[in-house]
């Protein structure tokens, strides 16, 4: 176990914990955009900045810094607060239309940005390039269907050649994990349209009610986990009803 202090309060955390996790274990709140407990540390959004006051001094991204024995961490030192506010000003200047960013900024007392507003063609920008979608697709799903494209001002997320992806399985993890709701996905008839990725995947229909629900390319899951074969085919509603019917029938046969 590692002993450190967060805002002068002692905390004990297991080996391999980051400062961010220790801060949260201490009950102190820190905003993050690019952090997810299921993925490797990334350190992109710079909202979780803290200062280390001992044994050395430094301003670090707490999500990507390992907790060390004897470390003294300040989450709200003037240095950390101004670093966080600066990051929020940049984010606000990129995505003034984002509800999430505006709220986060307001919580830290940032209501305006010194860095202007985006050009008209990017006025509606919601993506903060935190990389969660890219990382979840690569690290957790394994499809690696999307990646960063370009560099600097041109940097964006997309599929190779920005056309229909062959690797995308339509799972929607990217949209689910996106902290600013920048990824647009829509189920229409027998298709799932991943607008942001210029990609459409076919949906599988429930053999009982006919409703389209699961993307066809996720079919490999039932080969991988034979125990879900019957469940994969049924939509959640029919799955629930079938299970309930089974229980009632069991009760009935037991009673008679």
């Amino acid at each position, binding site marked *: 176990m590692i002993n450190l202090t967060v805002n002068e309060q002692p905390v004990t955390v297991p080996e391999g914990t980051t400062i961010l996790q220790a801060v949260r274990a201490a009950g102190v709140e820190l905003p993050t955009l690019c952090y997810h407990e299921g993925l490797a540390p990334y350190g992109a959004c710079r909202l979780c900045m803290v200062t280390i006051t001992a044994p050395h001094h430094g301003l670090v991204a707490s999500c990507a810094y390992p907790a060390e024995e004897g470390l003294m961490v300040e989450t709200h030192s003037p240095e950390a607060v101004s670093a966080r506010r600066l990051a929020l000003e940049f984010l606000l200047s990129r995505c003034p239309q984002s509800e999430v960013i505006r709220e986060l900024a307001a919580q830290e007392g940032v209501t305006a940005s010194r860095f202007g507003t985006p050009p008209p063609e990017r006025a509606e920008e919601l993506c903060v390039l935190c990389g969660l979608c890219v990382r979840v697709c690569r690290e957790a799903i394994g499809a690696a269907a999307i*990646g960063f494209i370009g560099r600097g001002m041109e940097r964006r997320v997309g599929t190779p050649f920005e056309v229909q992806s*062959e690797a995308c399985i339509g799972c929607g993890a990217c949209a689910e994990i996106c902290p600013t709701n920048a990824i647009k996905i829509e189920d229409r008839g027998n298709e799932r349209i991943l607008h942001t990725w210029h990609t459409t995947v076919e949906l599988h229909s429930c053999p009982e009610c006919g409703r389209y629900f699961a993307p066809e390319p996720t079919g490999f899951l039932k080969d991988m986990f034979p125990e879900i074969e019957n469940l994969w085919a049924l939509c959640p509603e029919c799955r629930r009803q079938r299970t309930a019917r089974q229980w009632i029938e069991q009760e009935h046969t037991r009673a008679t």
Partner: protein
Amino acid sequence: MPLIPQPPPPAGGALLTRLHAINAEHGYLPEEELRRAAEELGVPLSQVYSAATFYAAFSFQPRGRHTIHVCLGTACYIRGGEKLLEKLESTLGVRPGETTDDGTFTVETVHCVGSCSMSPVMRVDGDTYGRLKADILPRLLRRYQTEAGGMSDEGT
């Protein structure tokens, strides 16, 4: 599988070397070559595309027969490099990174070619032209358009 045993395929770390090789061979990165590189290196296509679009050294457009590099480094910029570029853009009808419709010229900007003493400088293929003025560019370009090219006559 080939009859003769092959060495194990190079790891993903060989990606940039591979991109350079493709770019050198074709003058740009054709889509099918990137797809093949992804497959052979065992790297996701999204990662290949990411790297390919990150570096300015790679092009996605077929290149012209001659590549023009206009220097916009500090010295050239101050001494009119931008005017050279403007003149090229209006004469050839292309912007930096683009190729003329007839496939003769590709125009690019660079940041210093180490010839600041003769700024503003422009390079066509391997030839460096210094102390350039925008109004002589059309004459210079004509040399390359007529295929002879090079610094053969009069020089600069």
